[in-house]
């Protein structure tokens, strides 16, 4: 099993490496799909065991554990919602084939999600506006690029987002496409906030509360924006909906906050968290491929899915 785990992990990393644009969630789904394709399981239980083990292996990699967990959970649930008569079939291969076709559909659907989000968001852009964003988010990047292509002019302020300076990556990507952008210190968020017109954030996970888990520093930005009456828009694909209910910062599950290697080896007291939780009252709207939602709607969606 250990060998399998490593193999799964490396496959996952390969998928991630092959396509720069792909999100961690989608990559994990593709990994699971590959496992499903290769699967030789003969019962549904066996298959779900296999998938669960694979999901665990994926979570042990150092990538965003929130996205991975939510994507895997959704994938498993998605494909297993098979009509009852099909499950009774003695021949498991038909079931497997059915699952595979479902998986295909799912992946196809998810691949389009960023475009859908970008379309949802387009009417909210105003010409000559100042936009603040945090760290590096592929969804936000795609939205901004599409808006620029549509001819809207705006100036983007990106926070540096330490400890890994992922904001710089975002800045480079934006500048490459000709969007005026400025790098802003994390500590300077309060200082620039009065000039901003709106804030765009990505999310690593969307919680049942309607709040989000995102790179550390998001909460500061959201609180400042709320005080100064600036709207905060979150962009997240539907695969990022997680079935968790954090009550406050301390209640975030440890495997979201820290990378898995850190959990295994280091003393967590001394470790800096990588993410923080932004409660729903600081978020104006959430853009997903399912449409534009208020934070209150997210909880409903999750209830509909998981019951």
């Amino acid at each position: 099993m250990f060998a399998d785990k490593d193999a799964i992990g490396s496959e996952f990393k390969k998928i991630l490496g092959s396509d720069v644009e792909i999100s961690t969630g989608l990559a994990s789904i593709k990994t699971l799909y590959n496992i499903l394709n290769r699967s030789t399981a003969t019962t549904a239980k066996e298959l779900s065991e296999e998938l669960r083990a694979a999901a665990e292996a994926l979570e042990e990699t150092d990538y965003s554990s929130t996205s991975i967990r939510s994507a895997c959970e959704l994938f498993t649930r998605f494909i297993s919602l098979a009509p009852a008569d099909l499950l009774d079939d003695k021949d498991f291969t038909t079931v497997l084939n059915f699952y595979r076709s479902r998986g295909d559909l799912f992946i196809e659907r998810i691949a389009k999600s960023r475009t859908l989000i970008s379309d949802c968001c387009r009417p909210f852009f105003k010409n000559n506006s100042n936009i603040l964003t945090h760290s590096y988010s592929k969804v936000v990047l795609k939205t901004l690029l599409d808006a620029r292509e549509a001819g809207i002019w705006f100036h983007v302020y990106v926070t540096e987002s330490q400890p890994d300076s992922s904001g710089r990556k975002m800045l480079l990507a934006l500048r490459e496409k000709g969007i005026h952008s400025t790098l802003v210190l994390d500590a300077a968020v309060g200082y620039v906030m009065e000039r901003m017109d709106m804030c765009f954030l990505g999310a690593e996970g969307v919680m049942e509360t309607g709040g989000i888990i995102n790179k550390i520093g998001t909460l500061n930005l959201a609180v400042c924006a709320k005080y100064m009456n600036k709207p905060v828009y979150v962009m997240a694909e539907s695969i990022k909906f997680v079935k968790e209910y954090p009550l406050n910062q301390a209640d975030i599950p440890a495997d979201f906050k820290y990378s898995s290697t850190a959990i295994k080896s280091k003393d967590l007291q001394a470790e800096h968290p990588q993410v923080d939780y932004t409660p729903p009252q600081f978020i104006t709207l959430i853009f997903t491929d399912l449409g534009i939602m208020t934070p209150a709607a997210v909880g409903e969606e999750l209830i509909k899915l998981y019951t």
Partner: protein
Amino acid sequence: MNHRFTITVARAAVIFVKSVLMHREFLVFKQVGKSPETMTTASTRQEVIEEGRKHLLIEEGRKQLLINLRRRTTREPSFKLATDTLNFLRKVVLHGTYNNLEELLALLRENGLILSGAYPSELVMRNLVLMVCKLARESNSRETNGEFDSPYDSLNKLWKKEDKENQIGRSAKTIRKKLIQAVNDIQIEMETCREHISAQGQYLVHMNDVLIVHSLSTSTTLSSFLAGAKKDKKTRVFSVQIPTEPDDHDAVSISLCEVAGKMCEATKVILSGATVFPDGSCLAPAGGLSICLAAHRHSVPVYVLCAFYKIAPFFVPDSSAVIKHSLPGLPVAMASKWAGRVRVLQPALEMIPANLITLFVSNTASIMPSHIYRLIGDYYHPDDVANY
């Protein structure tokens, strides 16, 4: 002599009439896009004429609607506009030429775009067009698909969407019939919504309440709501009026500047809404924002009355594009001095953010602002909204 004269006159008349008709047919052909030379058989020609005539009817209906809009100088209750639009749309459905659902939707969309292009500030028209589109889809699919929940995407329906592609399209005739029926249902709902809203008044307004209302003279929904609420109850009503508006029955008139001061006495604020957006923010007559801010400061609940046709499925992020400015009301002496140098601001509407509103009172139920999006699925279809 006389006899021959009358015959010549009659013949001339006939020729004249024929030529006029021919000319008309020619015009009709031009509009429809077909040339008379290609028409060979009498029957197809008849069809084309019919088409053209219907097309003209639709165009005239639209023109009439737009002319009526242009005639208005002040904001009228939306109900009239909604009924007019619905009548026009009914005409489109009745007289339009289409063979299946897609063509019908295209036709509706085209007309809708013309209307909203002419008057982007009247969102009710846009809402109704989208509503009729959804009803068209419904009437198309009603037979084939038994279950009938919200067409909007949900996580657990991500795979079901694909199944709907292999639906059998109904014939245009059945669509038309069902659609007209549905449109009539909507009409009835619109006509009764005022009463339903008023009926909720008695639950929302209690004894000894002090209410602040705004734009009482322009909103019939608001006045009937108040009338229903005040029955057998002792309430005091402060009505925020500008001095030039007509005075009102039972309410004490106060001006907008006094609202912030009077808010300490008030227990409830009731406003009428022009349009409601899915996140719970709404467009209300100008002056509403000041009242809501003062109410927020004093923790006074704000109720906004909105009929179902005012709930829009789309967002308008740039409110200045949608807010219509009404005619300036300055005396002539001012106008002569200021002409061209001073802009007099007289917006008709204002955007009120969702966090200032406590409850939306609609004809079906009272809704919290954060739950408006749920109603959207009842009335609109996502594809229509996306493509508009």
